[in-house]
């Protein structure tokens, strides 16, 4: 698996980076929605909502960039995958619509507040589940003929895609709990610790289950992970997962503030790297490589210029926005 540095590879890494930033930013955001039913008190819910209200739509913009960027850089892959993932993608969009409007709507009404709380929780859960299912559906491969998707509109539904869907829900819940540990105080934070424990164990179980299932989906994955000399590259991933998990457990025992969230993100990063190892150089596994799907060079170059200048700028002012709203959000004093 030699990695040659060409434009398509550069773009594969850019899209991978964008999707990962999305997971980092919207993962905890969706996780808060998944955890919402576990915090029935209005005071807690207000704090949870406020901890993310100033940044949530910036977080979701990375998803728009992921979609738009893929259409621009790998139009063939976008054109094949979207119809293949039709149902999960539509479900994800509807979930995001419901949870997104809830941010504003629940402050505008007393009578229907519960309704928008349900929309927020249900929408977040649906979006997370759909994203996980979509991931599983991509990994297990889709039926391509010529330049078109040639399968049915329920092909994505398999035990494996259900497993990855559940795994992502659990993972986002962990991020959400760890975010609350970082952003809240008092009783709410204590409960967030307990939930972090619970979802960490669940997530390790999920990582294990998906890791065991993935290599046996298709021949390529097995060879990729278990043959010599690839093992030299792939073996550190599970070892690092074990190490990070141990650190994360320790940070929960010691009740650290920031470490649980950052270490949870590292768990995601390692899992994500594992996915990358499995998929590369395919963008539609077993059917379309990044070179086959790539846009013409002048399209990729035209955008590369913008990305090189603008993404650092965006990360800069996004960081500033997070900085403005830094610190604990608590019921006694609100934003500091």
């Amino acid at each position, binding site marked *: 698996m030699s990695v040659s540095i060409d434009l398509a590879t550069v773009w594969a890494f850019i899209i991978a980076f964008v999707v990962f930033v999305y997971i980092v930013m919207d993962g905890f955001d969706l996780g808060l929605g998944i955890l919402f039913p576990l915090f029935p008190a209005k*005071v807690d819910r*207000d*704090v949870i909502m*406020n901890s993310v*209200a*100033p940044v949530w*739509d*910036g977080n*979701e*913009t990375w*998803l*728009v960039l992921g*979609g*738009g960027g893929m*259409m*621009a850089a790998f*139009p*063939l892959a*976008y*054109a*094949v995958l*979207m*119809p293949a993932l*039709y149902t999960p*993608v*539509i479900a994800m*969009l*509807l979930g*995001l*619509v419901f949870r*997104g*409007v809830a941010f*504003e*709507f629940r*402050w*505008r*009404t*007393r009578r229907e507040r519960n309704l928008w709380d349900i929309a927020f929780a249900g929408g977040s859960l649906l979006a997370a589940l759909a994203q996980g299912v979509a991931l599983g559906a991509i990994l297990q491969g889709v039926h391509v003929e010529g330049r*078109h*998707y040639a399968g049915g*509109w329920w092909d994505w539904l398999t035990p494996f895609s259900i497993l990855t869907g559940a795994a992502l829900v659990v993972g986002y819940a962990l991020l959400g709990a760890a975010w609350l540990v970082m952003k809240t105080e008092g009783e709410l934070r204590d409960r967030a610790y307990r939930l972090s424990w619970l979802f960490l164990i669940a997530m390790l179980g999920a990582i294990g289950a998906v890791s065991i299932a993935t290599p046996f989906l298709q021949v390529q994955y097995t060879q990729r992970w278990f043959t010599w000399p690839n093992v030299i590259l792939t073996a550190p991933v599970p070892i690092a997962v074990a190490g990070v998990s141990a650190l994360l457990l320790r940070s929960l025992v010691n009740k650290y503030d920031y470490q649980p969230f950052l270490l949870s993100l590292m768990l995601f990063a390692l899992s994500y790297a594992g996915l990358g190892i499995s998929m590369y150089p395919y963008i539609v596994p077993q059917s379309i490589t990044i070179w086959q799907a790539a*846009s*013409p060079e*002048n*399209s990729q170059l*035209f*955008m590369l210029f*913008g*990305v090189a200048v*603008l993404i650092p700028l965006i990360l800069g*002012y*996004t960081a*500033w*926005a997070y900085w*403005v*709203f830094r610190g604990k959000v608590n*019921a*006694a004093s*609100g*934003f500091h």
Partner: protein
Amino acid sequence: MFEALDAIVLARAQFAFTMSFHIVFPSFSIGLASYLAVLEALWVWTGREVFISLFNYWLKIFAVAFGMGVVSGIVMSYQFGTNWSAFADKTGPIIGPMMAYEVLTAFFLEAGFLGVMLFGLKRVGHRLHFLATLMVATGTLISTFWILSANSWMQTPAGYAINSDGQFVASDWLKVIFNPSFPYRLVHMVLAAYLTTALVVGAVGAYHLLRDQKLAGSRVMFSMAMWMVSLVAPIQMLAGDQHGLNTLKYQPAKVMAMEGHYQSHPNGAPLILFGLPDQAEAKVKYAIEVPKMSSLILKHSPNAPLTGLDTVPRKDWPPVPVTFWSFRVMVGMGCLIAGLGLLSLFLRWRGDLHRSRLFHLGAMAMGPAGFIAVLAGWITTETGRQPFTVFGLLRTVESVSPLAAPAVASSLIAFVVAYFALFIAGAIYILRLMALPPRPSEQGPRSDIPVRAAGITPAAGVAAEGAAI
């Protein structure tokens, strides 16, 4: 064949439906973002209380409208892939980068600074907060730039080549971005957004003036809105005329549909004011016409020849009845809006602008006129482009995803149900905010509500919020 046609009709219905719901929000929030920037600038400059009160009043409404625009926009960015995958594959190398630039230069700018704009006034100080408002307003305009460039390229494609995979490839990015219809469409749309916002602001001001003519906030917002309407409406008519001439040059079939010209007129074409276009018989029934007027408008000469759809192969005809009527709705609204502006100038000159109850009722009735005009205008230009997605080059039937009709039907039903529920709720919440008078010392969006809720008793926060509603 029948089933394939069904899927296309359903996919088109879905795009039209989700798009129509989406476009209402940007056409309001583009103008409102600029208005908020003006209000805050006036406040920073003059220090007058009324400007920050109005800023906070409209900021709460902006937050709701913007949120709805964002979520319905995310849906749009995935529609190309889900329902129009063949289009996405073929035009991705051109449309894709433009949309990516829209996200990079506009969406992030808006989203990145929106949080500070909504909740950050006390945290970052006046000047930095004004900068955040300015960034959000700029973001909405940059977004308009890119998405209209992409849309215009589909109307008047330029600067492209076609590669061996059948994809459109840019040969000259400047020609792609600044394609022939883009400058006209951009100006026309931005002015439309400003007018739409001015009419809404004016209607809200009029509503509160009807109840209390002395309230400073109502007086200021009504006066500002009427200035905007009276200045921009005439410019918009001029811009629309120029846009029409541009369309005649590059998309003549669209203008034929707008005019209802099935037949060619070698000696000056009449302007059909009203009538019932019959696509099957290729004529406009019960037409009320002004002789030679169409040639005068389009060619600036009464006897200039104008060709009709009889010179265009029938398989390339747009659906004339829709294009014909939506165009008339748009122009009709435009005339009413310009009339409102003229009347406001007259009343202002007489000193009755804040007193005339009849005029306030009229301004209230005109509140939704901008939305109607914008929707009708978009229906005109998009149906007039049919039966192509990329005009003259890629047919709509060749653009659609290889999906079974039940899949598209199910998602269409899901969107219809969800959108009606959510957007009716959103509209009610926005109208409720608008029903409150713009009082002095108006507060911004209340991220502090739960603070008070917990600080004293939960009921106190609810009550405080209830007072705000």
